[in-house]
């Protein structure tokens, strides 16, 4: 099931969702077995920012019946730390590297894009636009105009593929995707996490998460992902990386049917570190692609 995406040739259509797999930490836990059985056809880094970030105070996780809420807060070593420590290690991965970057101004993002764009270890860049523009106060990825301005500012700085990662927390991700396309994006990816929160069961009225609010991921957002991917596909011709709640081959199949070209597995890797490879295999073998146990003809159908 080899696929081509923005000029990259990938062994199968399943990559990881940014921030849900740390290949360097996984190497510490699993050793070289990780490289032998690497579950994804490309590796997407966690979001890198210009300056280092500590991330949000704990607790950072809240479990839902069908997923989780996180308020990790994008901890990372910052551009310099990443270039010095992480990039050399990630260059040893058996798959192309896509670096995800974020900044609170177009200039910051441009700096990141230029710096990573120059590195041959980097195959493509993903722009996390779920961030308020410090100048306008608007969430960059929630507003087509902001996204257009961002693309105009960063596009000149690299010839490498630029993937705009859309936020689901807006009225029309398709409008934002269209703006990204018109202003030079090579692909879009969606969905990022859906804004949500939980109350602390022991401190009435206080949020559980150290960051207050967080982002919902996992099966609870699958139906949101599906509809947004379909809406975006109806508006743009760009390749789409679809994600949100993928646990099985048939969930990936649904996103591909809805218009995605690649599918990213995020939260499911927490439950099963090999989920990427398993989903790719289920997809390739058309295993588990039917929802119900019995074929249609012999039963009383449900469609009135």
């Amino acid at each position, binding site marked *: 099931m080899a696929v081509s995406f923005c000029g990259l040739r990938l062994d199968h259509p399943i990559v990881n969702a940014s921030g849900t797999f740390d290949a360097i930490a996984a*190497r510490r836990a699993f050793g070289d077995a990780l490289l032998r059985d690497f579950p994804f056809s490309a590796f997407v880094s966690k979001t890198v920012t210009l300056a280092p970030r500590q991330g949000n105070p704990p607790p950072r996780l809240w479990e*839902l019946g069908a997923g989780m809420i996180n308020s990790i807060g994008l901890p990372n070593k910052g551009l310099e730390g990443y270039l010095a420590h992480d990039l050399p290690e990630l260059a040893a991965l058996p798959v192309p590297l896509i670096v995800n970057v974020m900044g609170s101004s177009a200039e910051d993002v441009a700096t990141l894009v230029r710096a990573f764009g120059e590195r041959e270890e980097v195959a493509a860049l993903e722009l996390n636009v779920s961030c308020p523009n410090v100048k306008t106060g608007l969430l960059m990825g929630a507003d087509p105009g902001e996204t257009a301005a961002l693309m105009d500012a960063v596009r000149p700085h690299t010839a490498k593929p630029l993937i705009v990662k859309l936020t689901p927390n807006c009225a029309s991700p398709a409008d934002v995707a269209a703006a990204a396309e018109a202003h030079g994006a090579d692909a879009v990816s969606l969905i990022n996490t859906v804004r949500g929160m939980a109350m602390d069961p022991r401190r009435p009225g206080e949020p559980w998460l150290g960051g207050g609010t967080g982002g919902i991921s996992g099966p609870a957002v699958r139906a949101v992902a599906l509809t947004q991917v379909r809406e975006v596909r109806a508006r743009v011709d760009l390749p789409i990386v679809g994600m949100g709640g993928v646990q099985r081959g048939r969930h990936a199949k649904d996103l591909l049917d809805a218009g995605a070209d690649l599918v990213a597995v995020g939260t499911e890797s927490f439950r099963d570190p090999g989920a990427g490879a398993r989903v790719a295999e289920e997809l390739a073998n058309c295993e588990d692609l039917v929802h119900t146990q019995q074929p249609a003809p012999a039963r009383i159908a449900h469609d009135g």
Partner: protein
Amino acid sequence: MSAPRPDRTLAPFGRRRLPVVGRETFGPYVVLSVADADGPAPDPGQFAMLAAAERWGGGADGRPFLPRAFSVARRHGDGRLEFVLEDVGPGTERLCELEPGDDVWLLGPLGRGFAAPRDGRRPVLVGGGVGIAPLMIWGDALGGATTLLGFRDAAHAAGAALVPGARVATDDGSAGHQGFVTELLAAELGGDVEVYACGPPPMLEAVRALCAEHDVPAQLALESGMACGFGACFGCVVPTRDGYVRLCVDGPVLDAAALAEVA
């Protein structure tokens, strides 16, 4: 990515489906045995992420969804792993009801375990409640060690049977010494000792403060909410003097000196 020198026993990549082969109760604690003949022998203090292979989900609010972290409490020669569980919520509730014949998904061993005592110091093991678990395998590895265990009451102190010879304190005095286990510990801090502790945060904080006061090195096995167990989610951080560290890859055992406080 140059091969790092492993500072831990590595986990096979991928979770494995393993049969439950035993279930015993000690008061409120359930000892679950899982057959893992092909798995590596964990370092004392390492943990595994566990989930029931069937019916993981559908409890209160539909949980559990994620696997749960448990210290490896013992490993037998045939690869049988023992875990000591306390039912505190939907995940542990489901795991506590497993019987031989059921399967679990297991990922591990994970994390960094206990380090040998510095400069030939005498190890003293201190546990609170289900925090007994990692002390069992560590005591085995040390060939026996002074072990002090704190429990809420006599019912919970039934867990002390898991470490023969351990001295017990209970909050209500219904078994052993009445009071905190740190009161037993204070009496041990005279000579050249190194303390190994696992238990609820207030206990660990008391141990940390006491050891700091007596200039005694201590290694603390901490807990935090974990989604993945292998460094993927950045959810399990605890604050150290050097900032946040991911407990699943940089712990769960941390040197007490690295911590300003156990919160």
